[in-house]
Each structure stands twice: as C-alpha cells, then as structure tokens.
C-alpha cells in the first residue's frame, strides 16, 4: 500500500506545529532521549545522529505507572482502576531500529493477559520513522533482520533527500489517516531520487546469523563463555532500560497513607541480583554469568521460540551505554563453536 510523496522540511515542521497546537504529544529524538517537543524549533531531524541513549519505550510502557488504587477500611478494601492516558503520541524521526519495537513488545503484552495499558497507548501511537544514515561500531540492525531503511513499524516513513526535502512514504492506514488533513503540503514523489538515496544507505556489516546463534544457544546453556562476562558485568539495568524492547516489570504496592495506596508497575531489569530472588531466599540466577546468559537467551532464543521474533532491534544502545563497555554484538557474535 506504500505510497510515496515529497515534503519540504518546513512543511513537515508546520504539520508538527499543528500537532503540538492540537494538544497531542510530539516526540522527537533529543540529546539523550526522545523528548516531548514544545516548540518545532527544537526539532533537528538529523539522519546522521546515533540512536538516543534510551528509546521512546517509556511512552508506551512507562517506567512507573499505577495499575490500581486501593483503600483499606475496617473490614474491606476498595479498589479503583487506574485510568490509562490514551492521548495521541506522534513520534517524529524515529530510527528504523526503534520503529519496530512496539510490534515486538506487543506480542508479550497480549499473548495471555491483554495489557490494556500497553495496548491503549500503542493504539494511539503515530510512528513517523526516518531512514538512518549512520552507524557506529555498536550498530548491528542488519544482523537481526532490520536495516537503516526498514519501514517496519512506521506509519509514515521519511527519507531525507536533502537538507530541505524528504520523501514521505505512507506505510499504514493509520499513517494515511494522520497525514490526510495535511495533504496540501505533499507533492509528488521523485521515486528515482529516493531509490538512489536508499541504495546509498550505509548498512552495518552483518555480525552474526541469528539462526545459528539460536541453535548454538540451545546447545550451550552451560558454557564457560558466560563466566568471563559475569566477572565484568556490574549488574545494573542500563542495558535493559535503554533497550527499546526489554519489557520486564515489577508490581509493587505503595501506600501513600495508612489507609490508601496504589499498585505500581515499574520497570525491572534481569541483571539485578534480586530479580529472581525468591521469598524463600533461594535465587536461581544467583551469579552474574547466569543472569547475562538469561539476557542473551531471552533475546535470541526464548522470545524467538515463543513469538517468532528476535527480542532485539540491533540499535546497540545497551553496548554504547554500558558502564563497563560490554558489547552485546561481540558476545552474540561469539555464540558459536
């Protein structure tokens, strides 16, 4: 259904301005995270920028959100559901390695219990992806089935033709609905130029074959390779929290007075020592190597087995931000005999 148009940057910004004026949330990559744009002058739309330090995950799966509220009375507890903020969120200029993240997570949030919070937010997302024109030593989107020009997950997709013009591809019906009111800004596409630009994309070299990794992981649950990583990793959750598709969470009850409180859903990280700590005191993943093994297995084996998708977009955020420079690409590449 893809239809291609041409749009000038200034017109694109006009559309953005309108989005803001309408009171919808406009997200764009900022210095270290996706930020809510208050004024279009803040928008950079730089295809050569590296991925932000963390993805826009928190707008669809917040770092902390109330699930319900409770109030204790003498012989009873009253519950109130938390209402989900289903406001429209427009993400402008998302990297191809980010755009698909919601689709990947969607399976997890819907396979058994349908997470209304996630679904409602995801439904209101308008994803405007943009072709990526750079990569560094940590990027490996091509190894996990993604690419700098992938439209996967985007409702609209931008291809920068010059500083001033973009090719705009309408990828989904949702994208079309969004852009229809602004059709007056769109011109006819110069598909040849677009193709040229796309073919000049700098693909990161393929580092590994996910199928081989999958197969190797199945055979090497116990492998001395995990030990070395266990010694260096310091067990923080930077990797998990920066990751566009890591989705583990913790449920805690939080009193805010002696009788009232709320049940919160908070991000959790599998590298934390107490992530799997049982109430009995037993911890099945008591040492760091087991925890890192879990991380890799979850991403490249378990998730694939369960949902047929790799739980990784190859954005390289976890490696770039790792305080001790652990490189997931390097580790996964080494997952072979």
């Amino acid at each position: 259904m893809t239809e291609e148009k041409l749009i000038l940057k200034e017109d694109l910004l006009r559309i953005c301005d309108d989005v803001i004026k309408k009171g919808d949330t406009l997200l764009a990559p900022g210095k270290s995270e996706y930020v809510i744009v208050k004024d279009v002058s803040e928008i950079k739309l730089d295809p050569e920028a590296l991925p932000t330090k963390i993805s826009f995950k928190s707008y669809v799966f917040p770092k902390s959100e109330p699930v319900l509220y409770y109030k204790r009375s003498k012989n009873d507890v009253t519950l109130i559901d938390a209402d989900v903020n289903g406001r429209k969120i427009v993400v402008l200029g998302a990297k191809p390695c980010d755009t698909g993240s919601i689709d990947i997570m969607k399976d997890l949030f819907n396979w058994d219990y349908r997470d209304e919070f996630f679904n409602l937010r995801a439904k209101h997302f308008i994803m405007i992806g943009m072709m990526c024109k750079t990569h560094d030593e940590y990027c490996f989107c091509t190894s996990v089935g993604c690419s700098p020009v992938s439209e996967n997950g985007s409702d609209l997709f931008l291809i920068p033709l010059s500083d001033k013009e973009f090719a705009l591809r309408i990828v989904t019906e949702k994208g079309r609905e969004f852009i229809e009111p602004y059709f007056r800004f769109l011109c006819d596409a110069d598909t040849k130029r677009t193709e040229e630009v796309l073919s000049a994309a700098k693909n990161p070299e393929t580092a590994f074959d996910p199928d081989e990794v999958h197969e190797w992981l199945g055979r090497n649950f116990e492998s001395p390779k995990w030990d070395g990583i266990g010694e260096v990793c310091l067990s923080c959750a930077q990797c998990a929290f920066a990751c566009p598709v890591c989705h583990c969470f913790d449920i805690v009850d939080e009193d805010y007075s002696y009788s009232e409180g709320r049940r919160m859903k908070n991000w959790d990280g599998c590298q934390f020592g107490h992530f799997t700590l049982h109430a009995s005191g037993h911890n099945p993943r008591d040492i760091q190597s087991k925890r890192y093994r879990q991380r890799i297995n979850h991403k490249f084996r378990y998730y694939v087995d369960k949902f047929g998708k790799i739980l990784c977009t190859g954005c390289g955020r976890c490696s770039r931000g790792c305080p001790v420079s652990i490189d997931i690409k390097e580790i996964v590449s080494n997952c072979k005999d």
Partner: protein
Amino acid sequence: MDELRRFARELLLKKEVAAVIGYEQVGEARTRPVVITDPDECRRLVLNEYCLNNLVVYLNRARIKALARSKEGIRKLAVVAKPCDIRSIVALIQENQIRRENLMILSMNCHGVVRDFGCEFNGDNLAAKCISCNTQSSTYADKSFGEVREIPKFTGKLEYDLSEIEQLPPSKRMEFFREQFDKCIKCYACRAVCPLCYCQRCITDKTIPRWIESSSHSRGNFAWNIVRALHLSGRCTGCGECERACPMDIPLSLLNRKMAMKSKELFGYESGKSTDNPTLVGSYDQKDSDELFM
C-alpha cells in the same frame, strides 16, 4: 604499558596474585575492565587516557573475591588503579571491605582521562575530576607504571556549575534537582559502578519496610537520589563514575561534590586520604558545631 604487561604476567606466573584486574582496549577510544587469570592474557592490558572505569569496584564483588579464595586461604588480587581510584581503595580499607595485605596495587602515573568514551583526548574533553587533580602518581601503590606527563589544561565547559546552583534560591534549587531526578529510570548504574556502594542489599531494595519507593516517579526518584548522596557523604572519593554511567545524564556528582565540600568545611574531613583516619560517619568530636541545634 609493556612494563605493566610483563609485571602482571610475572605476578600470575609466580602465583603471587590470583587475578589481575585491568583494562583492555575495545575499539579506538574505549577500554573495558578485564579480569585476567591466565598469564598469557596479560598482553591484553593497556594503560591510557581511556582507562575510565574505577576498577576498585571489582575488588569487593563476590565473584572476584571468590577468585582469590582457595582452600589454603586468601590470595592477593592485583588491580590497576589510577591515583584517584586509590582513594577508593583507602576508603574501602577504612570500611573493612578489603585488606591492604591482600592487594597488589598497580598504579598508573596519570595525565588525565577523557570525560567519556569515544572522545578525543584533549583539553576540551578532559574529565571533570582531572581539572584540578593534584595526585598524578601515588605513593600508596605497590608499583607505578608509565611516565608522569602534564595534564592538559581544561578548555571545555562544564554543563553545570556547582557555585551557580548554590546561589539559586531554595525553591529554584528544588525545581532544578527535581527536574534532574525526574529523568532517573532507576537502572542503578550509578550504584553498580560505585566502589563504595557495596551493600549486600541496597536500602532501596529493602521491602519491609519499604525505605525508598522503587517506582521511578518524582517522589521515588527524589528519595533515591537524596539517599544515595547521603549514604556517600563523607565516603565518596569523587571518582565520578556514577555520573558517567548515568544513561540519563543526571549531574550526580554535583551532590557528591557538594557533600565532599561540606565534609571538609564542617569537619575538615576528606575521604580516602589515609587508612589511619577514622571515618567521618562513625566518629565524632565533642566540638562539632552545635549551630543547627536550638
């Protein structure tokens, strides 16, 4: 660098140490901590401006401590440490976490490090802690490597100026910190990289009672960041790893630096100076200021 590799290799060959904790190069402008037990692997060791990590944090890790433990007792661990990192060693010794006799400190004569990986080493990109550094080499170490060279003059600009923030009215300061802390996602990278955050279970992970709300809402974030700074008051040695590790770019060292200044101003105490000093918290002077008290 070669000297370090040779020396470390010898240590392992002679079984004087159980392991060497050092840096290896990964990429052009980045190093990674490495734990070496095989003498031949010592060729991976490097010493340069990209040796950012404070490796002292590893000395107190259960996994690393286990390496040093054998049936015969406890063997030494060798650690590569910048002179500023050695202050963390001193602090850990003061707090009974490690023993000097179980350590082989391999120090580097340091001429400054970059503020973050991937930067070119020059005056613009000098790490904040190196700007006014006056300990380029250490006498506490067992051996020092490399030559002493001058630290480049800082020509960059710090994002946040402590004295400017101090001068803001209280409500503005609270606003500033709340805004900064609101960014926090509670990944606890700051805690993980801190050599002095060695608790078996951090106060923030305690659930009965819940000391610090684990949620990353404003209140939970404020409490966590304040308590983190409080627990490091008079202990933090200013290695700045927390701030570097923070994926959300929260200026954590502002608080640490402020508390270090206060410790000095109120009690004349500087952390990590000498193992003979009593710790700031845990000791008292009858003459401590009574100004706060009605």
